[in-house]
């Protein structure tokens, strides 16, 4: 293993770029809150601005969460091939506390009625005397309110604790001898097995609580997996692009071409998982044609048709055509290019999940608000991830499967 370039130093250009993105983004977000007003509709409280901030917060938090899940998956499955890229996965996971604090802040603001993303947070929805009374939400109110808050805090604590411990054990293992480090490895294996169980439940329920409850009247059993597959593929793209970029800078020479090829396969495969769930959700609702279910897609069909087709094309047809052959998955430039496009595609997907329930028919198409918010959160994400990456050596020193990973060849 080449040991000269094991410590990553954030290139000043990348730092500059992330600051510029954050700057432009911050200005757009401030402008967004100043200009996003529709005075003739008194129900409209800068909804699009808030929904945009929510989209950005959730999407990038979900990437960190997806990476965290993938890290746990490697331990639980005792997979060896990804050991050489473990530090990159770990760097991506530690955006999680930042992303979650944005979400928590939004939830608290929502509870104090600063925004109307969640209709069930409004005052008097379950009170018959109130003008806000909503019979459907009143029937579900037991699931929301205090119970919702307990769940939300539980997810956040559990995810952060698991990720923190996995990362800590991984670093501690490198500080002792190879023989002693095995103890840390087995600790992580056990911890990951528990994390997989907890994540299996919480990834679904959190998607219901945070995403599906935007359309409080509506429900879908596919929602949890749909959101999960989206976060997984975004995480795989992020990790792949980071590896390719680092290799281009001359770091990570020990990562074999086969490892990158495998990451390309993950991007390809999980794109199909996403498509499968996206389509299944649509087809079942389309086929059954029950009014209370079909409203969800009616809003999308009427006001978001272009976005709906774009998302399907970019996240399904595009990776299918582009990443099918072996050569394309081994061409680093190609992988980076395709990855970037699908990454944007999945951001659009989250926009399409959030906007129709909040902005609804006021939607006027994608604009500078969406771009600005995306840039702000992207800049922040890049800054945090690269900072995390520079704090630890890029290579794992003690890991039972390290040698297997360094000789990975397919």
């Amino acid at each position: 293993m080449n040991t000269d370039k094991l410590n990553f130093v954030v290139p000043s250009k990348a730092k500059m770029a992330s600051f510029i993105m954050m700057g432009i983004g911050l200005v757009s977000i401030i402008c967004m809150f100043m200009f996003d007003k529709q005075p003739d509709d008194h129900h409209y409280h800068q909804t699009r601005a808030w929904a945009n901030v929510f989209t950005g917060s959730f999407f990038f938090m979900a990437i960190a969460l997806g990476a965290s899940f993938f890290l746990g998956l490697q331990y639980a499955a005792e997979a060896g091939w990804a050991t050489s890229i473990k530090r990159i996965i770990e760097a991506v996971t530690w955006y999680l506390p930042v992303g979650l604090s944005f979400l928590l802040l939004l939830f608290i603001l929502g509870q104090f009625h600063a925004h109307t993303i969640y209709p069930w947070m409004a005052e008097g929805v379950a009170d018959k005397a109130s003008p806000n009374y909503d019979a459907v939400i009143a029937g579900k109110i037991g699931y929301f309110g205090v119970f919702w808050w307990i769940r939300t805090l539980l997810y956040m604590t559990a995810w952060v604790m698991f990720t923190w411990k996995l990362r800590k054990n991984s670093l501690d293992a490198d500080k002792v001898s190879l023989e002693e480090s095995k103890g840390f490895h087995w600790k992580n294996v056990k911890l990951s097995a528990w994390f997989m169980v907890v994540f299996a439940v919480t990834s679904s329920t959190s998607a219901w609580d945070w995403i599906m409850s935007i359309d409080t009247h509506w429900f879908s059993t596919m929602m949890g997996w749909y959101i999960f597959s989206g976060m997984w593929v975004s995480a795989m793209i992020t990790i792949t692009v980071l590896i390719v970029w680092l290799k281009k800078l001359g770091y990570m020479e020990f990562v074999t071409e086969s490892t990158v090829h495998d990451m390309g396969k993950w991007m390809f495969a999980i794109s199909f998982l996403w498509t499968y769930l996206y389509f299944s959700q649509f087809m079942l609702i389309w086929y059954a044609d029950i009014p209370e279910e079909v409203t969800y897609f009616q809003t999308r069909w009427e006001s978001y048709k272009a976005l709906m087709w774009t998302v399907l094309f970019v996240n399904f047809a595009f990776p299918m055509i582009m990443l099918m052959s072996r050569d394309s998955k081994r061409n680093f430039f190609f992988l980076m290019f395709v990855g970037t496009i699908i990454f944007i595609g999945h951001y659009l997907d989250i926009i399409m999940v959030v906007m129709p329930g909040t902005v609804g028919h006021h939607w006027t198409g994608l604009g500078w608000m969406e771009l600005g918010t995306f840039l702000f959160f992207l800049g922040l994400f890049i800054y945090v991830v690269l900072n995390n990456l520079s704090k630890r050596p890029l290579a794992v020193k003690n890991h039972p499967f390290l040698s297997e990973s360094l000789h990975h060849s397919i």
Partner: protein
Amino acid sequence: MATKQIIHGIYSDEVPLLEGCKSLRASGIRVKEVYSPFPIHGIDPIIGVPRTRLAICAFIYGITGLSLATLMMWYMMISDWPNDIGGKPNWAYYFNIPAFIPITFEATVFCAAHGMALTYLLRCMLVPGARPKNPDPRTTDDKFMIYLELNDEQSKKADEILRSTGAEEVNYKGTIHIEPAY
């Protein structure tokens, strides 16, 4: 008519075998075949096996399955006997396309998977009643073998290379006659 010597180079591990293959190829000797108890990753480019074209076959089989399923459903559901299912009359194929997608998908996977498996078996001549072609049964247990067919001059060089890279045995298994290709 050319006469070629059949040589079996027997190794007890795959790492020296790969070294042997590299040295043989570097001195311009063609490795005819390698027998191993388990698949050796990354051996294909070393012994000069061209990239598999099975993936291309899979794509063609997949497209075939997709077309056949579409044709079948179009004939059944649109052309021959249009039904009104769940308030969705089958007047045109594109109209009810979401309902047809699961079957299209399944047929594509079915044809691609079965086509690939059958192609592989036929290409390896693994048909019912096929005789085993393994020249040394020990390669199904714990030995690794390089199989060579060479003329006398190359045989001497190959013998040296095989022994120097750690072959346990170098067995001469007679000669074969090959008609020259015109």
